């Protein structure tokens, strides 16, 4: 074959075609590189997101399960309790354990073991186990090595044969000597019910103990037998003390997974958070497929895929945010629950001494000479006892959850009674406006009395220099409403909702539960409690029960 000499025009055409092909190849190569980088970046982002989700799940579980340690640790140093443990006084320890277990029924059983491993007391009581030695248990041995809070492995209970996990903390004397072990035993079923509310976007999680025995896995419901996960590749790594992310294939469910595995330090449990790899990496795959099929329609494809990837990432970020919000809410609730229940437990011990001080002041007032200063000091005693008792009462009300017993109730009569009983300081003028009352409402009169009493106390406290307290009754929405207004300092707009949060207070006295209790009681009775305020002029609280 001979090459025919080409004309200049033909040469130019060839060059042009060659140039175009080269440019096309260049664009294709560039695009391929871009796609590759994008896919890699997306995959990295998804791995990072999975790790972040696992972190959030870990924090949720630690907040949820770790609270039992906090309760035990708060209980162990109580003076009377630790003295009783040091004396091995079963009757007295029983009393404390009963109180603990009744306050925290989610601890299925609580017990005290002496330093020699012998069971001293338990609740609910199982006297057949008294005197039994528990030196063979991992928690006993662990506390012997290092007296710190410890979570046991999963084991079959000696009492009911069910699977349990034990949390233990040392009980120390004043000098720091370990005088016993306080433990709570919880059924796996109880633990399970607490953890099912935690969900993982496009996946799930499971928990294993220090030996790889299953503590929680949503898909294994009602497991009565130990489930040994120790041979699962990810768990093997966990047991070797490793943490990380692994892509694994689950032969049972025929599914490729992204598994993030780590230890929960305070509980000693291993956590594996897994997500379906297909689901998690879907956006990346869609990019690859899309690019291959679309061929040369590069710009459109890239723009389209970018949106898909972005949208998917936004979805995951939203899920992550929701998880974080849930975590914060849970931590707050747990903290409040612990606070409320411990407070309920110590109230008895606080109210008796308060009662004695009050009685003494009363007696002294009966017999003391009418000396002005003596009377003033007796007045101070009585007033401060009342303040202390109000705080205890707020805590108790907060801890107590009694379902309302709703009966037709006249709000006006309740308000009148509250005003009559309220010990308002001098300088406060009361105005009681009855604007046609309104029909009786279906509420628990005791609880609504308490709401009104809290509002009146709150209004009085807002006016330390005196002012006018106005109570207004009116018909509203087929029901009735009561407004309690003061002419006090007012509430800045940014605090208007926060005042109903537990433990929020701007006052030197009080712990910030009065309004929180008032709102939760109002809502429990089918009502609403709202606040409005003009800073510097006063506030107005409206309690409303519509039909």
């Amino acid at each position, binding site marked *: 074959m001979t090459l025919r000499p080409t004309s200049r025009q033909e040469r130019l055409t060839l060059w042009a075609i060659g140039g175009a092909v080269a440019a096309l190849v260049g664009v294709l190569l560039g695009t391929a590189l871009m796609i590759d980088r994008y896919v890699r970046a997306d995959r990295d982002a998804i791995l990072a997101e999975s790790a972040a989700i696992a972190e959030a799940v870990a924090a949720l579980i630690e907040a949820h399960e770790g609270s039992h340690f906090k309760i035990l640790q708060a209980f162990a140093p109580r003076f009377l309790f630790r003295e009783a443990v040091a004396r091995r006084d079963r009757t007295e320890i029983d009393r404390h354990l009963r109180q603990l277990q009744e306050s925290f029924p989610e601890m299925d059983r609580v017990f005290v073991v002496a330093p020699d491993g012998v069971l001293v007391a338990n609740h609910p009581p199982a006297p057949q186990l008294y005197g039994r030695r528990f030196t063979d248990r991992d928690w006993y041995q662990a506390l012997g090595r290092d007296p710190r809070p410890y979570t046991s492995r999963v084991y079959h209970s000696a009492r009911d044969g069910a699977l349990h996990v034990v949390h233990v903390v040392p009980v120390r004397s004043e000098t720091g000597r370990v005088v016993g072990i306080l433990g709570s035993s919880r059924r796996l079923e109880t633990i399970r019910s607490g953890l099912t509310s935690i969900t993982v976007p496009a996946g799930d999680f499971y928990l294993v103990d220090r030996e790889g025995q299953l503590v929680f896995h949503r898909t294994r419901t009602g497991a009565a037998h130990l489930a040994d996960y120790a041979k699962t590749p990810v768990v093997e790594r966990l047991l070797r003390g490793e943490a990380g992310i692994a892509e694994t294939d689950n032969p049972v469910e025929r599914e490729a997974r992204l598994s993030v595995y780590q230890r929960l330090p305070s509980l000693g449990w291993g956590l594996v958070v897994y997500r379906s790899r297909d689901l998690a990496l879907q956006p990346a795959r869609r990019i690859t497929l899309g690019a291959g099929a679309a061929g040369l329609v590069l710009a459109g494809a890239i723009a389209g895929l970018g949106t898909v990837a972005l949208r998917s990432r936004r979805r995951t970020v939203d899920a992550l945010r929701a998880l974080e919000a849930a975590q914060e809410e849970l931590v707050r609730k747990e903290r409040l629950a612990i606070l409320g229940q411990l407070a309920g437990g110590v109230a008895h011990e606080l*109210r008796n001494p308060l*009662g004695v001080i*009050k009685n003494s002041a*009363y*007696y002294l007032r009966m017999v003391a000479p009418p000396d002005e200063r003596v009377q003033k000091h007796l007045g101070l005693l009585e007033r401060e006892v009342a303040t202390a*008792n109000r705080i205890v009462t707020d805590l*108790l009300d907060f801890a107590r959850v009694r379902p309302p017993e709703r009966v037709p109730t006249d709000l006006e009569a309740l308000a009148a009674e509250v005003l009559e009983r309220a010990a308002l300081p001098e300088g406060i003028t009361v105005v009681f406006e009855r604007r046609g009352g309104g029909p009786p409402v279906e509420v628990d009169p005791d609880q609504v009395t*308490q709401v009104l009493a809290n509002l009146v106390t709150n209004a009085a406290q807002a006016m330390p220099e005196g002012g006018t307290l106005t109570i207004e009754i009116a018909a509203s929405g087929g029901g009735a409403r009561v407004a309690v207004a003061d002419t006090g300092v007012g509430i800045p707009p940014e605090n208007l909702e926060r005042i109903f949060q537990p433990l929020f207070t701007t006052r030197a006295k009080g712990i910030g539960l009065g309004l929180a209790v008032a709102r939760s009681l109002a809502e429990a009775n089918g009502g609403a409690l709202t606040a409005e305020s003009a800073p510097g002029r006063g506030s107005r609280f409206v309690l409303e029960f519509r039909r």
Partner: protein
Amino acid sequence: MTAGGGGASVLLVDDDPGTLETLRDILETRRFRVATAASGEAAVAMARARPYDAVLMDIVMPGLGGVDALRAIKAHEPRTPVIMMTAFTRDDLVADARRAAAVAVLAKPLEMDRLLALLERVTAGGAPPREEPR
């Protein structure tokens, strides 16, 4: 100061010694005759040994609790008015005490004027309105 108890006998029952001491002094100043018991068991034994015009008893005590002691005292002497007091606001116990026919269930710290008025009324034989802790 009013005339007070007029020599009526009151049995005070509480496991807290401070409560017993202070209540005894107040009631004796108001001319009640006061006997004290530090446990539910002791209270039941004393109430069986002789009648009292009124009993003032704590609900939460170790051993025999106030509500059980109340039932035992009522079983022996149904007409004895018994006033219960409690530092707890345990609704179930308050309801139990009510069912066991306590005259009133008062919350600690006690509102002494209310308690004294109530004691004077029941020892004078009047039928008092029921009162509950708030």
